[in-house]
């Protein structure tokens, strides 16, 4: 009897977990979201505080079973700039960003934000906002609840959730389960989470994925506005044409190693455009190894 009931309960839980993960949800257009007219810019960062937002990556290396997926990567992202982090798929961009954010332990090297490792920041959400995967929200939880939970954990007033939902144009969809959101809406929910603590540093991994042209323009203007206010914006992408439009500085990575760093103009150099420079710099070093 006990075993039968236990199996029933366990079966129900497993079914629920799988349903939440794999359920094909009714298609939702972006009708319940609206791209705000004015990009969110937050409070400008005073000049004397700006050095606290400097990202300094030194010799980061990550090995999995003897293979180096990130190999001695070093670069700096300065406050007041959008730094594009470019590379082919599988080049090590995401692993590098995860090491910067304390999610992956480096085999060697160190990454600091304003001189401190991410894991040593007492309330990191107030210093650094990150978007690593679309939303990161439980599919059965509403967008508003997802943000309120993050607020509570970070010690931020719960009302801030509604402020950032409005900033990313998700006010009308705030009460809907995140699993019902389109990919673009999930990306914007992820951005909203990153903005909760009005942080000085933003780290975004492929934030343009799933966004329509209007959404991409909105993202570009948002990141530009945040950098203009003195924030450090580090954004990974493989959308070269898009990055060429708004990055101040670039870091190009291929096969786990830095292929080029510098201003957009210095990286492009004598090439006709960024795409030509990128293909030249990463030639024969496709990311999939």
């Amino acid at each position, binding site marked *: 009897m006990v075993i039968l009931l236990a199996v029933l309960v366990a079966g129900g839980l497993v079914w629920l977990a799988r349903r939440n993960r794999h359920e094909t949800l009714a298609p939702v257009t972006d009708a319940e979201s609206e791209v705000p007219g004015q990009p969110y810019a937050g409070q400008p960062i005073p000049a004397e505080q700006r050095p606290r937002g400097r990202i300094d990556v030194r010799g980061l290396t990550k090995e999995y079973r003897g293979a180096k997926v990130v190999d001695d990567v070093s670069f700096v992202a300065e406050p007041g700039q959008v730094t594009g982090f470019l590379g082919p798929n599988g080049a090590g961009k995401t692993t590098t960003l995860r090491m910067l954010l304390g999610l992956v332990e480096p085999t060697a090297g160190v990454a600091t934000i304003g001189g401190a490792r991410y894991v040593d920041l007492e309330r990191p959400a107030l210093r650094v906002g990150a978007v690593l995967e679309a939303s990161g929200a439980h599919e059965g939880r509403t967008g508003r609840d997802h943000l309120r939970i993050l607020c*509570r954990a970070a010690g931020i007033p719960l009302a801030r959730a509604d402020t950032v939902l409005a900033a990313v144009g998700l006010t009308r969809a705030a009460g809907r389960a995140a699993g019902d959101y389109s990919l673009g809406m999930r990306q914007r929910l992820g951005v909203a989470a990153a903005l909760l603590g009005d942080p000085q540093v933003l780290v975004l991994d492929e934030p343009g994925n799933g966004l329509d042209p209007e959404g991409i323009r909105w993202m570009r203007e948002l990141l530009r506005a945040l950098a203009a206010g003195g924030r450090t914006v580090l954004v990974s992408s493989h959308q070269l044409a898009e990055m060429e439009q708004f990055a101040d500085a670039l870091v190009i990575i291929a096969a786990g190693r830095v292929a080029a760093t510098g201003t957009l103009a210095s990286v492009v150099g004598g090439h006709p455009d960024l795409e030509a420079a990128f293909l030249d710099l990463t030639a024969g070093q496709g990311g999939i190894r």
Partner: protein
Amino acid sequence: MTQPVIRPRLISAEIMKIRTTRAWWIFLGIFTLFSAVALLNNFLSHHYQLYPQQDLADRAQALAQAAEARTPAGAAAIAASMMTSGQFLTVLIAMLLGIHVVTSEIAQRTVTATFLVTPRRERVIVAKLAAAGAFGALFWLITTVLDGVVTPVFMASQHISASLTGQGVIRAVLLGLLAFLLWAAFGLGLGVVMRSQVASVVAGIAIYAGGFAVVELVCHGLYDVYHQAWLLAAPVIAPAVAAQVMITPAPAFPHAPPQWTGAVIMAGYALALTAAGIVQIRRHDIS
């Protein structure tokens, strides 16, 4: 300066996580159903204990047992049993909730957002332990209120009386609370160590439901060979047996060790699993 590992705001966030998904209502529904079924089962079983059926083969013995059940000590034992109805089954739900608290974060990939806000992962696990304990206590409260409403009605309908605030009843009810807390913590520890939702649910149920039989078989087999008396008490090392020993005032089985042994062993499992899980999750790359 060392920062405290217990953070009230993290505990509050973990409680919010549990109550803002549909799974919580499913847990609550199943738990309430199990509690009600177990209470009804206990109701009927004690009724037939007090009023044996006419067609019983050994009616004389049944009547003697009924007379004993009507004594003050017997009535107090029935009251304690009614007030802890179905605990054997319902603590299972507390354990599954403990597992769910951790493994749903991994299954749903929300763990990245969680560890971005709180990079000190041990603080998250400690907060989850507290949240799982809080919901374990809530489950206990629900079942105790249900039992507290039905037990006086049952006692009156069966024409027996015993104080529901007597030492025996209070002790049984409080040990029940400890069982809920420890099983929730056990589930959480198992979830942290195993991380896979399916694997930890299967392992949890196997340990809960099958552990007793396996350990008893092994211990009795060893006793047949070595004839050491302590081998007959050894099944207490199985978590389900330890919990049973902890909540049973009379020896839970022949040669059973004292009640406190069960509590220490259960607490030991919960703490050891959680500590092992913390060590593991601190090293684990979230990719």
